[in-house]
């Protein structure tokens, strides 16, 4: 089970955090800070796994963003790399050639996408097509409501 997933930039700014275990705010901040420091100091040629406290950390760098997952001892590290890759592919398909700015300005959409891929720390859907379909449908639902509001705005009522 994934314990948490963090996305952060090369300057150490947090872009996304998903916690599957409850921690206090203070603990979360501490973990985030420590982990960001540890990962950022790793040299580029080193392997993508490291042991930290009693967890295994799997991280991968895509352009300027680090995707960092913490898994339990019995989980498969190589598969976690695949999960991270799948997530990036989905974001890429959705945003069209995703970059860090997309994730900054549309952070809520990044969360929605993650929630369609994983639930409670486990993968729920292995088909890229299905995930994207679900996201599109929900976006459509959102827009239907939005359409009414926009129409009123355009008519000058709002």
């Amino acid at each position, binding site marked *: 089970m994934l314990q948490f997933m963090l996305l952060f930039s090369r300057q150490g700014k*947090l*872009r*996304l*955090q*998903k*916690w*599957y275990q*409850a*921690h*206090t*705010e203070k603990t979360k*901040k501490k973990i985030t800070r420590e982990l960001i420091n540890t990962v950022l100091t790793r040299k580029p*040629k*080193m*392997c*993508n*796994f*490291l*042991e930290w406290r009693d967890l295994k950390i799997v991280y991968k760098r895509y352009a300027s963003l680090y995707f960092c997952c913490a898994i339990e001892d019995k989980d*498969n*590290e*190589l*598969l976690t*790399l*695949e*999960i991270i890759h*799948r997530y990036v592919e989905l974001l890429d398909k959705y945003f069209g050639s995703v970059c860090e700015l997309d994730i*900054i*300005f549309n*952070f*809520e959409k990044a*969360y*929605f996408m993650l*929630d369609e891929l994983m*639930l*409670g720390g*486990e*993968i*729920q*859907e*292995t*088909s*890229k*097509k*299905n995930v994207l379909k*679900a996201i599109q*449908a*929900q976006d459509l*639902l*959102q827009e*239907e*409501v*939005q359409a009414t*509001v926009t129409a*009123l705005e355009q008519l000058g*009522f*709002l």
Partner: protein
Amino acid sequence: MSVLQALEEKLSKMPAPMRLKDLIRNIRAARTAADERAVIQKELAIIRNSFREEDNTYRCRNVAKLLYINMLGYPAHFGQLECLKLIASPRFTDKRIGYLGATLLLDERHDVHLLITNSMKNDMEHNTQYIVGLSLSCFGSICSPEMSRDLAGEVEKLLKSSNAYVKKKAALCGVRIIRKVPELMEMFIPAVRSLLNDKNHGVQLTAVVLITEMCSRSPETLLHFRKVKEIVPNLVRILKNLIMSGYSPEHDVSGVSDPFLQVKILRLLRLLGKSDMDCSEAMNDILAQVATNTETSKNVGNAILYETVLCIMDIKSESGLRVLAINILGRFLLNNDKNIRYVALNTLLRVVQSDMNAVQRHRSTIVDCLKDPDVSIKRRAVELCFALINGNNVRSMVKELIFFLDKADPEFKAYTSSNIISTCERHAPNKRWHIDTMMRVLTGAGNYVPEDSVASLIQNISESSSLHGYIVQQLYKGLKEDISQQPLAQVASWCMGEYGDLLVGGAIEEEEPVQVSEDEALDLLESVIQSTSASQVTKEYVLQAILKISARFTHSAERIKKMAAPYTQSLDTELQQRSVEFTALVTSHDNMRPGLLERMPPMERKDEKQVNGDMNGESEDRKPMKPPSVQHESKGLLELLETPGAPMPNAGLSLSPTHNQKTEPSSSGGELLDLLDTLDLSGPAPAVPGFQPLAPMPSQPAPVNIMDALGTLEPMVAQPQADLLGGLVNNISGPSIPSVIAVENPTLKIEFAFERESPDKVAILLRATNPTLNPVTSFLFQAAVPKTFQLELMTPSGDLVPPNNSGAVTQTIKVTNPSRQAMRMRYKLAYTVLGNTSQEQGEVNNFPPAMFS
């Protein structure tokens, strides 16, 4: 919201709150941290205002902004209730943001989260599957035990729905529920079996995960699933389809069909097959197929192979399969990809115990990994190397490991050096190689060698008596090159102290024997003790060595005296004590010095497995030295404790010469009857040595002839061992021994009562009573036993025996009789009555034969 409301809001003067995008842009545009804070605080104030005014329209936008600000690190708990309101709203957008806010801001630590339970329940019954999905996602992220109990029923119902989208989410929520409240497991068991037959991969996957979770939590459920006939064949069938079926674009990852599902199935198979023959047999074929058919060029394939190997090693697979698995790991080791190598080393470490031979084949690759620049790989490789050492490969492996040690980071040095030392002890082919290797480790690891390794090394050296000359030469050379390494300095100075005569004697069969003069040796020791890098412990070792050397070297007495003198004022009590004692010894009792400082016999190694009463075994482990008894032909009852000089590694005690010259300056020079008691050396906690000076010294100097009379018998040797504790722990009760009257004269009656402490050891409880009308003062009882016995005299309770049997002086005498001979004892009694001193000697030979039966 109604059009009228919207119009009203617009007509009021409130401007629309900033869009999320604009806020983000503004924050990023801030040049300094202070600017950013200002922007954020301003916006937070506006948001708080609009929350207070219950602004329905823009609540969603405001919460989104709040969530962004929260991610930057600012507290946002006032938004929690707003999330509740959003969730309760009928609009999808609101719900979406509301649930997102709930997962980010509310978790089981906050009591507020229970308030959303009702909304969640309603949403789980909603018509729109996406709303159900939102609710389930939120539940899966943040549910607490209470929430689980409330909503478990709903989740279970959804598990049976016909909608795959909902089913898979419900299954993972089930996983979460089981984690939080294991008792609720049973309600999911019936529903889950049918899920496996679903066509949708997502449903299959989540069902497998659910079953895995159930089986790993509860052994009964595991048994249940093992027995259910369809499960294992079902899983095998699914896996087979995945591998054999052609390209399926929907689930394909780099040529592998749905690796996620494959891995999860393998994981479940591992759990089911563990220690179960039938299940394992059913899986053998498919495992072999997966192992051979999977593409290994990409990470995906390797992920599957990794899981397969783990599966094979855990279940009761046939040996061919196991060999196949280890070969796969061997191939991994040669892979260029560091991740794969790391994973391989990790797994090999887990299987090396059970499949040593197979892993040995890959030894050279593993040794190569020691040179990898990546620290995680190095760590794994080192552990694995130590696990692989056996009698055959120990030389080459240790050579490699020593290379590694030389270049290693400090964090590795301590681990590696202590492991090399313990490995050498187990597998060393011969003593000389052992000693050489130890020396290499000392120089290579410098100050990182742990303390018990120093002690064990000293013990080893003392055992290999033939090599003493060689050893001391090597150590001298090593120390000369570098005096700053503490472990090396400690061991070298101890050896020089013990075997210094061999060093200067020079007759060693070596390629380049070193000609060392006494002065050179002393120079070296002096430089060590005066060096700033010398630790406290090292200084103690060196000082003791210098003192011991005075008995080994022939020409350096003066110099040594001068060297020891300054330390009489040292601020360190240990150094001060030793040097003061030495100086006193040299000035007044120089004839005793050689005996005192004689070479130590080889230390007995206590077998670590010996469970001789825990405290006994433990304390004996920690003191590799057992002070031997000093045989002294010429000196009658001279009895002094030999002091090895080296302090205990853990306890930091010092065994200093325990002669009580300081307390008895008036006694005539020469013999002293020293009935010293044991030192309290044992116990894991460092204890200050407390020695109880035993019999009070005779107030008059003892005439020599008495000593001669007793001289035929063995001088008493007090055993400063943990036998005290041994006595405490092991009270082997044998048949009780009757007490005897040892001495009886008109003035005193002395009785011996016996208590058996061990088959070899008996404690004699002496009791002296006085039937006369006058008190007896200065009562002193001394005893001597035949050579084969060992005697310990404890402190008497006093020296005044009250008259009329109104009280007694008691004393404990411990006798050890390893050779089981008949017990004999000669005694000397001294006491004063009415100003008249009397002395008496005699022999006690009415010891009961049952004493040592």
